[in-house]
C-alpha cells in the first residue's frame, strides 16, 4: 500500500547511513530536488547513489555530494559544465565513481526491477568500460555481460499520483523514474498533484502503485528549475 506523507522530511525519514539510493532525473528534468534537499537535512551519510549524472549547480544531488554524503556514485555522465561539487570530490579522491554507459545503466535498473540475473548487451563491447568483463558472441554479434542494479531506496519525481499510488510523468522528466521505481525496495515519490483514486485513466498509468511506497505532494515543485548548459 502506498503511504501519503505531509512533507519531504517525513518522506525520507527512513533513509539511514550506508544505504543505496536511486535518484531519478536527467540533469534537472525529473530530479526530485525537494526530496534530495530533505535527505541532505536528514544527515544520512555514506550513501551509494545511482543517477544519470553527478549533480548540477549547487542544489539537489550536487548539494548532497557537496555535503560529503555520497561515498560512491553509479552514473553515465558525471562531468558537466556545472558539476563542480562532484569534480572537486572526485579529484580529492573522496567519492568513488562507477561509470556505466547510459543505456546499460537504464537496462541494469530495469533488470533489477524485473528479477533478471543479468543480460548480454552489445553496448560497450571492445571499450575501456568492458575491460575484464565477460563477453560472448551470440548470433555473430559481440556482447558484454551486465548485472542487474537494485537499491534500498528510490527518489523519484512524477507529475500526478492517485490514491492508489499510480503515477503519470511530464514530458522528458519521465526519464529514469519508471525503471527506478521498480528496482528499489522502497520508492519515495514527489508529485505536483495528488488526485483521488479513479482520477487517472487506467490506460495512461505509467508507474502502477504497486511500485510506489511513499508519496509526498509538492505543488510548488513543478516545473523543473533552469540549469546551466550541457
Amino acid at each position, binding site marked *: 500500500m502506498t503511504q501519503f506523507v505531509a512533507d519531504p522530511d517525513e518522506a525520507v525519514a527512513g533513509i539511514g547511513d550506508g544505504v543505496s539510493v536511486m535518484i531519478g532525473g536527467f540533469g534537472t528534468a525529473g530530479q526530485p530536488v525537494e526530496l534530495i534537499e530533505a535527505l541532505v537535512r536528514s544527515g544520512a551519510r555514506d550513501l551509494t547513489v545511482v543517477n544519470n549524472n553527478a549533480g548540477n549547480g549547487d542544489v539537489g544531488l550536487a548539494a548532497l555530494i557537496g555535503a560529503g554524503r555520497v561515498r560512491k556514485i553509479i552514473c553515465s555522465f558525471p562531468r558537466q559544465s556545472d558539476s563542480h561539487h562532484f569534480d572537486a570530490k572526485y579529484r580529492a579522491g573522496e567519492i568513488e565513481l562507477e561509470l556505466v554507459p547510459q543505456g546499460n545503466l537504464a537496462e541494469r535498473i530495469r533488470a533489477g526491477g524485473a528479477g533478471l540475473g543479468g543480460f548480454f548487451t552489445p553496448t560497450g563491447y571492445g571499450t575501456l*568500460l568492458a575491460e575484464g568483463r565477460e563477453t560472448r558472441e551470440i548470433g555473430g554479434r559481440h556482447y558484454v555481460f551486465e548485472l542487474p542494479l537494485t537499491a534500498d531506496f528510490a527518489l523519484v519525481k512524477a507529475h500526478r499520483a492517485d490514491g492508489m499510488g499510480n503515477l503519470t510523468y511530464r514530458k522528458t522528466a519521465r526519464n529514469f523514474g519508471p525503471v527506478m521505481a521498480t528496482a528499489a525496495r522502497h520508492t519515495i515519490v514527489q508529485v505536483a498533484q495528488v488526485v483521488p483514486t479513479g482520477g487517472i485513466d487506467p490506460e495512461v498509468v505509467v508507474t502502477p502503485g504497486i511500485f510506489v511506497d511513499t508519496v509526498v505532494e509538492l505543488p510548488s515543485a513543478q516545473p523543473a528549475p533552469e540549469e546551466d548548459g550541457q
Partner: protein
Amino acid sequence: MTDEAATLSAAGPLTRDEVARVVARDIPSGSYVNLGIGLPTKVANHLEPDSGVVLHTENGMLGMGPEAHGDEVDHDLINAGKIPVTELPGAAYFHHADSFAMMRGGHLDICVLGAYQVSAGGDLANWHTGRPDDIPAVGGAMDLALGAKQTFVMMDLFTRSGEPKLVPSCTYPLTGLACVSRVYTERAVFLLGDGQVRVRQTFGTNVADLQAGLPGVELVDATGRA
C-alpha cells in the same frame, strides 16, 4: 553529380553549416534520426520542414522539435544536451529503458555523431580523451554509436594542430567497434565498409591530395571523377 554538389566541390573546404547541409540532404524522407550533441545538432537546421524526418532524443522522446525560446521554454522538455526544446504533433514520450531499447534494438535509421577519431574500419572514438586527469563521462555515446542502422560521423578532418582524425586505428579510447558507415568532413565525404574507405565527394581538394594527408588509410576513389 548535382549542380549544387559540383559547386560545393569546386569552392574549397566547406563550412560546418555546409557540412551539416550535406548530411541533411543524405537523410531520406521519413527517417528516424538521432543527432548527437555538439556539431550534429546543426543538421536539424537544414532538414526541410516537409522532410518527414522524426528526431529522437535519448532522454525519452520521438518527434522533438526545434530549440525552445521565450515562453516556449519548459524545463521538463529538454534534449540530450539539456537544452529546452519543443514538441511536434505526433510526438511520443517514453522512459529511459524504452528509449535505449529503441536505440540498441536498431530501430533508428540514422545517428549522426561527432568524433575525436574514426578508423578506416569504422571504429569510433568520441567519449574520452584518455588523458589521466580527465574525469570520464560516457553518457549515451556507446549506445548511440552502435544502435542505429547507420552511424554517420560529422567532424573536421584534421585537429587544430593538423593531425588527421580519419586514422588506420584509433589511439583515443574507443566508443564502439566497426560502427561508422560514413564520415562527413569539410574536405570530403567518406563511405566506410567491407574494409574499404571510399571517397564519395571532395570539397576543394581531390583524392590524391586527401590521400597524402591521411597516412595509413587507403582511399578508394568513388567520386566518379577518377
